[in-house]
């Protein structure tokens, strides 16, 4: 039984199709991240799951129960919002027990649940304060606590860390992971931050234009992007794309005066494709002094951007801009002539006509 199952979900606002015939199965205890640029429909999908938006077609099942028409509170979900959405006039305790009071739970049960949640989230000392007297990180903890006390199977997070500063964000990210390890609930998490997605997710669903482009484990998404969009979206700094063609029955990639040996490429049948794109991540390229036929690209160093441990070096190769990530102590001087060694096993080839990975 799937924890959450979305079947042929379509959502229209007027004539605009926001979600297009979308299918998604989430396993029990899985941490799924919905990732995509703004407007891709990821928050909309989450709101549909929560029952805050009415879908146009399709079904939603949670824990095997068809909840397509159920009220948000009847779906067995807890939700955490980007703006925390705490009730300003209630104390932390009041915020956490509001839903339980409405559900008509007995007082001692409410107290017990609030106690347990506040212990897990270490917000015990804050229980009698109002949200206005809390910091951003504390507020988000309370918001998570409000979802926790519902003791539901599925947690929905709508960009919960986006309003926090960078340091707090990474702290809470770790805490969320710890929380998931401890509770083993199903979590569906919306974000536009790929670091959050890569660090937290069991599987990532990359969305664009109301369609899931790829649903896979973070490493698979990173190493074997299903199409050009996913390849360009995941990874910072972004993947280098080189337009060219595959020749010699798919044995070589040709662009400008450079010809690269494709032996060792992990993927499907390459064949001869007049329009192909080679994707190389900056960290999969190395700078060498000597050319190796079929394995290097000649380039000239333009500038470099030191980023602490690493430095991102920008080069011109065959008139194209490329970036390479090198340890900061190996920064080359601008204007230097170098050769970029390609690790073809880690490269991605795309057919330019349908933008899919070969």
């Amino acid at each position: 039984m799937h924890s959450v199952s979305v079947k042929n979900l379509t959502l229209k606002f007027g004539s605009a199709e926001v979600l297009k015939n979308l299918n998604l199965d989430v396993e029990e205890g899985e941490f799924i991240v919905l990732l995509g640029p703004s407007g891709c429909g990821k928050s909309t999908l989450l709101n549909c799951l929560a029952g805050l938006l009415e879908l146009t077609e399709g079904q939603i099942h949670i824990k095997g129960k068809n909840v397509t028409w159920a009220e948000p509170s009847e779906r067995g979900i807890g939700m955490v919002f980007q703006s925390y959405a705490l009730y300003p006039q209630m104390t932390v305790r009041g915020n956490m027990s509001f839903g339980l009071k409405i559900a008509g739970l007995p007082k001692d049960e409410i107290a017990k649940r609030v106690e347990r949640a506040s212990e897990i989230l270490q917000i015990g000392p804050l229980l009698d304060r109002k949200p206005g007297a809390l910091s951003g990180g504390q507020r988000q903890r309370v918001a998570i606590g409000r979802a926790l006390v519902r003791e539901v199977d599925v947690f929905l997070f709508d960009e919960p860390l986006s309003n926090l500063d960078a340091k707090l964000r990474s702290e809470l990210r770790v805490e969320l992971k710890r929380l998931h390890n401890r509770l083993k609930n199903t979590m569906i998490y919306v974000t536009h931050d790929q670091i959050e997605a890569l660090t937290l997710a069991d599987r990532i669903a990359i969305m664009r234009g109301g369609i899931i482009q790829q649903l896979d484990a973070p490493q698979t998404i990173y190493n074997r992007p299903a199409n050009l969009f996913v390849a360009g979206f995941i990874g910072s700094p972004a993947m280098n794309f080189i337009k060219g063609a595959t020749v010699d029955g798919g044995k070589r990639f040709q662009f400008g005066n450079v010809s690269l040996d494709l032996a060792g490429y992990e993927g499907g049948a390459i064949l001869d494709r007049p329009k192909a794109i080679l994707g190389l991540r900056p960290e999969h390229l190395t700078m060498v002094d000597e050319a190796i036929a079929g394995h290097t690209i000649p380039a000239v160093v333009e500038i470099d951007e030191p980023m602490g441990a690493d430095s991102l070096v920008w080069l011109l190769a065959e008139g194209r801009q490329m970036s390479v990530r090198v340890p900061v102590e190996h920064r080359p001087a601008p204007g230097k002539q170098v050769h970029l060694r390609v690790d073809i096993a880690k490269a991605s080839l795309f057919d330019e006509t349908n933008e899919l990975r070969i």
Partner: protein
Amino acid sequence: MANSNLAAGPSGAKPKPFITPQRAVVYTVLIVCAIFFLFPLYIMIITSLKNIQEIQSGNIFIPTLHPTLDAWEKAWNSACTGLYCEGIKVGFWNSIKITVPSTIVSIIVASLTGYSMANWPFKFSEVFFTILLLSSFIPYVVMIYPLVIITRELGIYSTLPAVVLVHTIFGLPLLTLLFRNYFASLPQELFKAARVDGAGYWQIFFQVFAPMSVPIFTVAVILQVTGIWNDFLFGVIYAGPTNYPMTVQLNNIVNSAQGGKAYNVDMAATILTGLVPLAIYFFSGKYFVRGIAAGAVKG
């Protein structure tokens, strides 16, 4: 010297002259406005404290030498409003009887309508919003006669319910607009969170939104109380002679001349009539401005 290591020259905050040209302009305008509005009030107060001989013989700008509250007592208790000589206190209680129910009913209806329009969109809710917006601009004079007929057909013309009904109806467009905009400006995620928590239409309204909406409720109360209290036209048309509000009674006192004009009584009655809105503005001006600003966000 402690600062000997600093270079010579200016240091710290730049001194500002007390009066700059901008300030001079601002203060001049403010003072002129204050005098313009306060001077009539001053004349009313000193006149109401004089006796009639002093008024007839003296200068209107000079304060009285023998202040007396006789005129106030007479205005409240025994000034004549046409046939009856029971003072303006009758009108005061009538105004209370008109204002309190009209204010309460119109605010309850308008806040619920505004809340529904902002958070529970229904079919054509945007159309209704547009109609509401337009109807706030229709001069209400065109509706007076139709409303006379409607209240007559309802059998309540010339009674308290009629004037309460009319005030409630005329308060609704603006108040609904105000409430809708205020509720639309509250964070949508709060509404969603409450729904996930299982709160329904009434619970969200009373337990989540209403406690956050004190400023807009304050504005609504002020608008309605002052508007209805100051109203003359609806009172004289729909209330009927026994229910005339204070403004109408005041007019009758001032106009029913028996013998010489009792300016001191007129002034006292006028101040008494204006006292309620005055007091309301005085005590809640801060909330009023805050609420108006809050209601103005997001159209």
